[in-house]
């Protein structure tokens, strides 16, 4: 399969990349790892006339701690997320999630920014970013703006990105030391998108849950931040009745399509099962 023809650009600064995208308009697409876009181009579901490759922009590959945030450049690969000692120490759920994305080869090329910016409801990082309360730095002709991940996703492949804007950085508030976490993903095989997946971050004090956040992957047109379900957990000992109520609240906001991964009702139930498992894992990891 051979894509349609296009012109290739490899700018070395964010400013020149934005200028190119503004000038070329709708005929241009930014290229990160390419593992979502290139398959679409090969099947001619996408036929951009220009590709603006972001890989030569050095400043987009950083992982740094700034105050109480960890800042990840958009072109940081999933492989770099997995091997980063800083991230493993401060936000270990990033590594756990990156490890269940695609396969080793794709993780060398696939980027965290591409995963978050693409707007594909099957991508794993968006629900995690909502769970963590992350914000995205979007860079356009007028400079930078910060958009919370919880406000970024408008529909399938529809995001808050304006024409010409690039997602350049992800800013994650570091969860408290001793927090519990879990990302659980049901997939049919290596490389598959989730039938359903759940991200959980909790803190426990003396056996009581003092904070909780839940994100759900691929069970709606957008990633879901399950605020009501998380709220039910707070103040409880994570006893069975409370967990049942939280799982029911999470299932209630899902709206998965029936597809080759299963009928809608099944995928909703699997979202509940993934949430239970992620929560149980988070509980065992939390230092109470």
């Amino acid at each position: 399969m051979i894509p349609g023809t296009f012109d290739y650009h490899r700018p070395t600064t964010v400013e020149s990349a934005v200028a190119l995208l503004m000038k070329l308009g709708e005929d241009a697409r930014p290229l990160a790892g390419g593992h979502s876009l290139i398959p679409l181009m090969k099947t001619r579901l996408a036929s951009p006339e220009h590709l603006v490759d972001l890989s030569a922009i050095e400043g987009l590959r950083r992982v740094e701690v700034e105050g109480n945030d960890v800042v990840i450049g958009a072109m940081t690969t999933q492989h770099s997320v997995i091997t980063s000692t800083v991230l493993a120490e401060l936000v270990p759920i990033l590594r756990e999630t990156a490890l269940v994305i695609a396969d080793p080869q794709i993780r060398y090329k696939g980027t965290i920014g591409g995963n978050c910016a693409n707007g594909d409801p099957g991508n794993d990082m968006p629900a995690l970013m909502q769970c963590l309360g992350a914000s995205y730095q979007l860079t356009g002709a007028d400079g930078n703006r910060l958009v919370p991940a919880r406000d970024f996703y408008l529909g399938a492949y529809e995001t808050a990105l304006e024409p010409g804007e690039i997602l350049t950085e992800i800013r994650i508030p570091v969860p408290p030391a001793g927090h519990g976490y879990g990302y659980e993903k049901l997939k049919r095989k290596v490389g598959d998108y989730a039938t359903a997946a759940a991200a959980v971050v909790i803190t426990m004090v003396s056996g009581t849950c003092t904070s909780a956040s839940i994100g759900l992957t691929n069970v709606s047109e957008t990633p879901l931040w399950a605020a009501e379900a998380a709220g039910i957990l707070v103040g409880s000992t994570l006893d069975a009745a409370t967990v049942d109520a939280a799982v029911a609240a999470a299932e209630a906001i899902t709206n998965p399509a029936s597809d080759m991964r299963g009928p809608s009702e099944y995928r909703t139930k699997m979202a509940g099962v993934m949430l239970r498992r992620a929560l149980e894992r988070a509980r065992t990891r939390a230092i109470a």
Partner: protein
Amino acid sequence: MTKSHIKVTINGKPVEALVEPRTLLIHFLREQQNLTGAHIGCDTGHCGACTVDMDDMSVKSCMTFAIQADGARITTIEGVANPDGTLSALQEGFRMMHGLQCGYCTPGMILRAHRLLQENPNPTEDEIRTGIAGNLCRCTGYVNIVRAIQYAAAKINGTPFQEAAE
């Protein structure tokens, strides 16, 4: 059609070529460089038969444009034998442990295993299996591929190879 000039190093040899931007790396390697060891299996990024090593990463060359490789170092199966022409530890392992049947997946398997052993010289069986999770084999059932990689790791490390228990 406008072509672009790229410079790459393939198996240690500098190469300059003209490519269309839409030329995939696998087509560039196979059709312009006559390096037909990397295979096109699924052509959709799932099977890993097209895996090559690019700047110390295992890359699916059917999902990468040749122009993205401008300036890169690439190793294909044609470049993995020892300089004297004898088989590398991995190639020897695949031969000794019967790690292939039809052989279609083997170039990709060996290139992926090469990078895996560079990053983790002494992997557990589980680490080998997750490490080659992006490479499909429809013949062997993977058992002998895992053994082949264990054999190669032992040979590279100078430790005795332990046959896995049946």
